[in-house]
């Protein structure tokens, strides 16, 4: 699925708990332009259950969520305008 979107930046947030994973996501989002795509890697459990929703509330678009081999999740987010 990553092939569908050009990824401007990627942030590995494995092992980063809530809410610092959201903090790092917001920092990474502030460093890309509207329309560009950020990939975040989130742990299973509270991180994947919370961060994508928070990101949507901030006006960004969650393009996809995919389970990785190690149980973590790759989430693609397009920055809102």
């Amino acid at each position, binding site marked *: 699925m990553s092939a569908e979107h050009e990824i401007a930046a990627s942030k590995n947030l494995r092992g980063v708990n809530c*809410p*610092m994973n*959201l*903090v*790092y996501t*917001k*920092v990474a989002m*502030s460093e890309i332009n509207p329309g560009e795509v950020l990939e975040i890697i989130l742990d299973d459990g509270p991180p994947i259950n919370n961060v994508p929703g*928070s990101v949507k509330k*901030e006006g960004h678009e969650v393009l996809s969520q995919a389970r990785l081999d190690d149980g973590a999740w790759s989430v693609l987010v397009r920055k809102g305008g």
Partner: protein
Amino acid sequence: MNYSAEQLERYSRHIILQEVGVEGQEKIGAARVLIVGAGGLGSPAALYLAAAGVGTIGIVDGDVVDLSNLQRQIAHYTKDVGREKVLSAEEKMVAINPDVKVQTHRMLLKAANIREVIRDYDFVLDGTDNFPTKFLVNDACVMENIPFSHGGILRFDGQTMTVLPGRSSCYRCTFRQPPPPDAVPTCSQAGVLGAIAGMLGTIQAAETLKYFIGTGELLTDTLLSFNALNMTFRRVPLRRQDSCPLCGSKPTITELVDYEQTACVIK
């Protein structure tokens, strides 16, 4: 600005707020705020603004810490009695947040010196304990076009408003001149419930942060007053007055004056 991991953690509860975010925290970090008075209002304001990461905080006070201050002026500890208030406050602010640059001004603000002091700041937080200085702060901020938060407390009552000079009503639009000396008791003569200093000072700190973040509605054209005895809050709508002697269309106040000081004559 590039935040360290430690700074991101320190400011995380701001950054995750949608209305603040990384950008809002950066604005707070670039802000220069002057707190007038390191007393009941200035203490909580100074501590919260330091905690929030306001980049430069100036604090003005000419007094030393008195034992009777400690009941409400929470930046000062028992060990600080006799010490300059600005130095006592600076120590606590830096202890909370070493990111913050504190500029101490150990002086009394007067007509002759206030404009020069406030000119160095983006926002002024008035935590003074007497009407002459409140009018002086209002007049100087309007003349220098510096936004400020007015605040006052007495007994169980507090009041505050935020002034954007030229855009919202100033203190003088509503209150034309200081009351006659001795018409109004000062804190030291009338008493004050210590905790209301925190209630009002933190409202002023929140207004200051909102001004820099640029979100929400400020207490402009609004006097917020509360009575803590009944815990009632009231918002009084205000309007800019064309007849205001300071910010109206035909101003008669064009120079600063020192009114007679009557504050805190009794300890």
